[in-house]
């Protein structure tokens, strides 16, 4: 960049980037005004706003911000489609779908297991080990959590046993990926099969055809005294599960750990430049081992939320692909805890929406189920910004 460019940039009052962002905001507003509480019953304001958004996007692209500009245009197109759908449906329908307090509560419920597993993924992959076995580790937590809670009589022990089981399976993954220098994606796939087999086998072995017992100790919901009966907040946050709050609290904690503590910096160093880390005396093998085991324990907590936290029982393959969604959330969130949280909330919102749409129009609700995956596909295709994995992610370290 030449000196001239630097001198010119501050003198321009509006940068193409800011115009592009304004375009995205306009596009979002174009849709939001057609849903409760505003509920505009005409397409005119939406179309006006969307035209502004497209113009802003085009201007932004012309100014060199191709990515943000094209995002503004894409969001505007989605907004017009969404607005057309809301304007053409009855007010009563709209209000039953967009019951915001219920939507928020359901979003949190769906996002919680994903948050734990996605954070686990962040830990493992920051240290340089791809963990596609999150699904299997979740499933282990799911079953052994119930087993522990049943055997030892308390959900606390359930969670402890779940973490141990997830950590143990992660240990297998660590051994294959770190010591045996296995292809980590293949090893992770094997882990998933193994977990499906182990949990199914021991469910049948311990509980037989009747399934898990009914009176399992469950993780309690947190009743917040102040806001429990305060309208929207009461319904949305007043009685969320304890694990939801733990999951959310883990996000800043993990961010602090990874970016502000010595141990966290070391972990990331091993994931980015293992040779350099080894040269300064860090044990790449040991750090990666702990990271993978921790990721298994985190994922298992996510699985345990499903069984011990929410449902109170276990059924075969209960996680049903949530580990893969958490993996996608981690990538969508650019391998960062906060990013992963937002992505999980987005996926949770997609699920919550499809539930509510299903109650009005079951056919359409099914298509909504696919929406989070389409968004992820768009995200990994780079529309939301090229995300970069840790430099040594997936590469076994061989000491020279």
């Amino acid at each position, binding site marked *: 960049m030449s000196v001239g460019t630097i001198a010119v940039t501050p003198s321009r009052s509006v940068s193409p980037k800011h115009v592009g962002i304004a375009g995205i905001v306009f596009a979002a507003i174009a849709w939001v005004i057609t849903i409760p509480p505003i509920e505009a019953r005409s397409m005119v304001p939406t179309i006006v706003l969307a035209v502004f958004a497209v113009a802003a996007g085009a201007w932004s692209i012309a100014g060199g911000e191709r990515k943000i500009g094209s995002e503004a245009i894409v969001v505007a197109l989605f907004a017009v489609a969404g607005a057309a759908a809301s304007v053409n449906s009855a007010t009563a329908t709209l209000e039953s779908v967009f019951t915001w307090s219920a939507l928020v509560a359901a979003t949190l419920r769906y996002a919680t297991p994903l948050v734990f597993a996605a954070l686990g993924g962040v830990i493992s992959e920051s240290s340089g080990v791809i963990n596609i076995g999150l699904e299997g580790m979740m499933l282990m937590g799911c079953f052994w959590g119930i087993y522990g809670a049943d055997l030892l009589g308390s959900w606390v022990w359930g969670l402890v046993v779940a973490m141990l089981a997830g950590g143990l399976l992660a240990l297998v993954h660590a051994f294959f990926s770190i010591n045996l220098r296995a292809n980590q994606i*293949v090893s992770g796939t094997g882990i998933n099969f193994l977990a499906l087999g182990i949990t199914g*086998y021991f469910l049948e072995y311990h509980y037989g055809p009747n399934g898990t017992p009914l009176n399992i100790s469950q993780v309690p919901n947190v009743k917040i005294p102040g806001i429990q009966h305060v309208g929207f907040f009461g319904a949305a946050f007043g009685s969320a599960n304890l694990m939801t709050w733990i999951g959310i609290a883990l996000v800043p904690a993990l961010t602090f750990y990874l970016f502000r503590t010595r141990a966290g910096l070391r972990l990331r160093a091993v994931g980015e430049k293992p040779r350099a880390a080894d040269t300064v005396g860090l044990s790449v093998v040991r750090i990666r081992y702990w990271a993978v085991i921790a990721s298994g324990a985190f994922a298992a907590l996510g699985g345990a939320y499903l069984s011990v936290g929410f449902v109170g029982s276990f059924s075969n393959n209960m996680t049903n692909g949530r580990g893969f969604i958490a*993996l996608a959330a981690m990538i969508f969130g650019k391998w960062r805890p906060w990013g992963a949280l937002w992505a999980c909330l987005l996926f949770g919102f997609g699920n919550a929406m499809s539930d509510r749409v299903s109650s009005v129009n079951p056919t359409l609700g099914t298509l909504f189920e696919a929406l989070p995956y389409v968004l992820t596909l768009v995200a990994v295709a780079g529309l939301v910004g090229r995300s970069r994995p840790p430099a040594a992610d997936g590469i076994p370290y061989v000491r020279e």
Partner: protein
Amino acid sequence: MSLLEEELQAEADESQGAAATSPAALTAFRRGASGVIVPIITAVIAFIAGGLIVLATGHNPLTTYQSIFNGTGLNWLFPWVTGSERATAATNLQQTLLNATPLILVGLAVAFAFRAGMFNIGGQGQYTVGGIVAVWVGSSFNGMPSVLHILFAIVAAAAAGGAWAGIAGVLKATTGANEVISTIMLNWIAIWVGVYCFQLGGPLHNPHMASTPVSNSVVGGAKLPVFWGSAQLQGLDVGIFISLALAVVFGLLIKRTRLGYEARTVGFNPDAASYAGVNVGRTWIRVMLICGAFAGVAASLDILGWKFDLFTNDIQVSQIGFYGIAVALLGRNTASGTVAAAVLFGALLTGTSNRNINLSIDPTLVQYLTFMIEGMIILLVSTDVITLRLLKGGRQLRIALKRKPAEKAPASQDGAS
């Protein structure tokens, strides 16, 4: 792979002094080690480990495995099995081969991508869209000439599967999107699209089934002819031959065509391939298109061969894409290996299905034991180190045993080389 070479090289160096190994013998040993011995050892270890779990939970692993084996129908191959036992075995073997038919193709869909350095987890989604299209074509166009109708359905399913996989290929080539994530996402999208199509009130739902979410049934003319067993009782249809023929095509494609050569070059090292003038992005796209086509054909053979209609539940619980990964890995991404591994997995699926297990052990336990064995097989094939160590150990033992009688001879020279 380089690790394998390394180990074998080390082994070759070691044995040089001991036995006068000719280069040809060494090459033969390498082929054998990577092609046949390692997968067999892998499977044996997994079965033993699975047997230990059965033993630890208080059952007899030998009778369990025997009952699985008899359930696969492979005992039909023994001439001493006669009478009603033989008839049952024939029915079971037909099921095993019916299971193997799509597994071969889904395995090839994974294997071809592997050869080009990609991991196609999307076999499931490609199979699903192939199935949707096959059942639509097969249940429409009533009155079309039979052969034409069948070909049309298979080609349409191949095109659909190819297009679905092509999305991942194009994204990888143009934006660098990781194919592992994009194919996982495409799997889920395919499943929900399938559920949307056939659910109650869905666009392709069978209007005569008011309360069952299912597609229309494939018309008689589009059904594949059954050549072994009864057509009414799910006998073996000609789909297996189409599958085997495509495995041969796969072998030729990899070894004898320019695309196969380019794919292997890209798989070995994309940068070097690009430097050598191979269009890497285009190769990725073409490989994915072909992978998806294989998976699409797999679905069409299931639909036209014995399923005839598609329930939304089938779409949601199917695990075939993941079996395909195991098949390809155990088959070492070769045509013949994939066929053999597909038969093994097809046999396991048949042998552990509910109706085939005698009551010495709970059938549900056996089904989940299969998952564990599969998991262990995949884990073991993810690294060559364990099996090679065993192989090497065995070989050293053999060499040592051979040398025993002639101990006095030039043993001291061995260490030098």
